[in-house]
């Protein structure tokens, strides 16, 4: 060989510059005896990461269409396939990509972007047909390959080639030491730079929109934030949600569960982005944006809404914008319902909530505070005076465990205490407390009491007990993490059996048994315990946070009798209308405790009422 084996040295002078002998080429006659290179007719096996025809794992694919978006040749079309799983709440669509091999250039960007990692390319690369069979160029890839011949996977997503950003943009929040004695808001929210980075992670698949109870236009407002246009973001948010500040802080965010980016990474922080947009725009400007549609023509109809919570006020927001006169009756001195009296200040500052309410009242919604229906006014009076009445009374009463000694005066309902704390009422702060329940309300009361204890006594003595294992708590994982940081003790798999009282009648703790299972074979709630593992959780008070129920006494006997009921709840049709044609019901009292569901409910009944009133107008 004429070339150097040592690396980096200068190559020796070669003789090719000298005009060679005329006979030189004859040296190559030696190749005459060599076997000719022939290629077999069978396709040669491609390399291990070859970019051949597509494969798609239909089990993993969620139909998010990111492949379609990144395809530079518009070779990918999404096809809706009936019969496949279609679950908006889980973020799964029954769509699958089909590839046009007349356009595909095998760049594999679709593989690299795929959030579910379901797409890959195979090692198969031969396909041909005549003009009559041109349809064979349009393929719905599955795991078997183009010709069902199983050539195996070629190009796949690796940690290097993954094009999605799977981790969230960092956001500042209060450290435990700075928050455990006050009710200051924990989360600071995104800075503009952080928000744009976070918004840029969105692939605009719209799974969030589909999963949201009120179908918020999250892709649109995230895009607007990415474009630096926060006012447009607010506009998009208000298309479906007048409780924008509230949902930007305390939403249960089904959107983030459905988020395609969340399949392999952290979902887009949709809730914090919404909050960011709302925080960036001044309150006055928000009010202007909401009024951009102009003043509606007065319809002459009047609607009464009972309860100034998210459901009632959302309905009020929609109805007033349709030109109806809306009166809202609120039994308590402030609007907001559970968001005002149930959610502590450190999660949702009262003035932030007040801004949302102010936007709604600025449209002309009249809220009558301290006006309890059933006492100050009757349902019959409302029926007479208004064209439609909405019952949005929420779940104001705490459920009781009814375990032995639970009628002790130091056994409280979480909602009652939270209401006392948030309205600044005096109450006897327990030195030590045991909370029953593993949901967000349990965390709210535990963490609120912890702050007060730390302020007053300098130490936290709170134990949270719940039936579930900690990873299955209903509470938000962030809540659990933060509760632990604040010194709260969490005991999971504990079934409450009774409150312990000493001889002097003083409450000294809660007795629990270890939970073996919560549901029976038919998935009915039926906890079984291991009685041998008994624990006494010490505490001078016990707080029940095991759920709430609606207080329907305001209806009065006559109406209660007249209405149709369904398992203790007022029976409603899909539009929220009760069996009485003038009465609708919405919010927690029909859909269970959740702000964004309440908002969705509010829209639903408003639309139904609007439809009804339009018919009425046309008739008259």
């Amino acid at each position: 060989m004429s070339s150097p084996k040592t690396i980096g040295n200068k190559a020796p002078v070669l003789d090719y510059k000298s005009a060679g002998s005329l006979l030189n080429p004859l040296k190559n006659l030696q190749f005459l005896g060599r076997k000719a290179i022939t290629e077999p007719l069978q396709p040669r096996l491609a390399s291990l990461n070859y970019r051949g025809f597509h494969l798609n794992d239909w089990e993993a694919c969620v139909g998010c269409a990111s492949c379609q978006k990144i395809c530079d040749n518009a070779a990918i079309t999404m096809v809706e396939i009936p019969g496949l799983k279609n679950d908006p709440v889980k973020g799964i669509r029954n769509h699958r990509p089909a590839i046009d091999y007349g356009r595909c250039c095998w760049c594999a960007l679709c593989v690299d972007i795929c959030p579910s990692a379901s797409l890959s390319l195979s090692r198969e690369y031969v396909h041909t047909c005549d003009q009559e069979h041109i349809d064979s160029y349009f393929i719905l890839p599955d795991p078997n390959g183009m010709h069902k011949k199983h050539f195996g996977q070629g190009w796949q997503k690796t940690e290097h080639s993954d094009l999605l950003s799977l981790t969230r943009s960092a956001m500042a929040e209060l450290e435990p030491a700075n928050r455990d004695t006050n009710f200051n808001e924990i989360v600071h929210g995104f800075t503009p730079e952080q928000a744009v980075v976070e918004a840029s992670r969105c692939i605009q698949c719209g799974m969030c929109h589909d999963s949201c109870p009120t179908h918020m236009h999250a892709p649109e407002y995230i895009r607007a934030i990415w474009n630096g246009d926060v006012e447009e973001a607010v506009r998009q948010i208000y298309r479906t949600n007048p409780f924008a500040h509230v949902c930007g802080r305390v939403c249960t965010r089904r959107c983030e569960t459905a988020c395609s980016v969340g399949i392999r990474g952290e979902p887009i922080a949709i809730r914090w982005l919404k909050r960011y947009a709302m925080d960036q725009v001044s309150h006055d400007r928000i009010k202007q944006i909401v009024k951009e549609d102009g003043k509606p023509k007065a319809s002459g109809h009047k609607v009464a809404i009972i309860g100034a919570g998210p459901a009632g006020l959302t309905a009020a927001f929609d109805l007033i914008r349709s030109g109806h006169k809306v009166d809202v009756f609120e039994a308590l001195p402030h609007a907001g319902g559970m968001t005002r009296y149930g959610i502590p200040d450190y999660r949702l500052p009262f003035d932030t909530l007040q801004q949302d309410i102010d936007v709604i009242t600025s449209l002309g919604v009249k809220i009558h505070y301290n006006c309890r229906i059933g006492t100050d006014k009757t349902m019959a009076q409302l029926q007479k005076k208004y064209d439609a009445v909405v019952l949005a009374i929420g779940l104001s009463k705490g459920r009781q465990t009814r375990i032995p000694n639970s009628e002790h005066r130091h056994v409280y309902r979480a909602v009652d205490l939270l209401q006392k704390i948030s309205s600044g009422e005096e109450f006897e702060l327990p030195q030590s407390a045991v909370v029953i329940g593993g949901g967000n309300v349990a965390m709210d009361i535990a963490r609120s009491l912890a702050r007060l204890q730390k302020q007053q006594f300098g130490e936290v003595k709170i134990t949270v007990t719940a039936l579930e294992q900690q990873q299955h708590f209903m509470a938000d994982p962030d809540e659990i993490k933060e509760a632990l940081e604040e010194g709260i003790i969490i005991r999971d798999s504990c079934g409450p059996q009774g409150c312990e009282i000493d001889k002097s009648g003083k409450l000294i703790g809660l007795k629990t048994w270890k939970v073996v299972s919560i549901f029976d074979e038919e998935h009915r709630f039926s906890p079984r315990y291991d009685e041998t593992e008994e624990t006494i959780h010490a505490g001078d008070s016990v707080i029940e946070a095991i759920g709430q129920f609606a207080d329907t006494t305001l209806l009065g006997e006559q109406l209660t009798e007249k209405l149709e009921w369904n398992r203790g709840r007022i029976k409603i049709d899909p539009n929220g209308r009760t069996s009485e044609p003038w009465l609708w019901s919405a919010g927690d009292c029909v859909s269970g405790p959740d702000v964004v569901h309440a908002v969705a409910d509010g829209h639903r009944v408003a639309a139904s009422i609007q439809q009804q009133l339009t018919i009425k107008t046309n008739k008259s």
Partner: protein
Amino acid sequence: MNSAQSQSLNVLLQEIEGIQLTHQNQRRLRADISADALPALLALLRGRAGYVHLSAISCVDWIEDDQFELVYHLWSYETSILISAHIRVARDPGIYLSVFDIYTPAAFFERDIHEMFGLYFEGSPDMSKFILTEWDGPPPMRKDFDSEQWVMDNFTWQDYHPDWLKQIEQQGGGVVKSADSSRKSS
């Protein structure tokens, strides 16, 4: 490049009136000048700084400013600094001077820019078509020419109807028109 060279280059370039110099990095020098001053700058660079190589002339259509930007990329085998001279000329009537007399390769780039942007170079040896011989539409690289629309107007999409798609359509499914149309509405 050493700093003495850079220094002398800077001094030299200051002879051009109104020149704005930006050192983008060690080997890239951006010069913004008026269109009138460009021939003088090129002559100066070629004659006194060893800038014999015209690497390229790039044209950018700043339609919102109603201007074309012309960028002359010049390389000196001596200083090893690439100078990009930026000028702006009005989009309408779109006429500028050829620099063919200073740099021979300009002929190709000017011909190309004329063909693609419709900017005419006075004094260029050949302004005839080269690539788009059979094209009689507007100069396609102009921002106001929408090539995608042109393709949509002049070509059809291959219409596929494979059996698998027919089956899915029978079951009530089928091609999703656009990603957004599949969304749930509130």
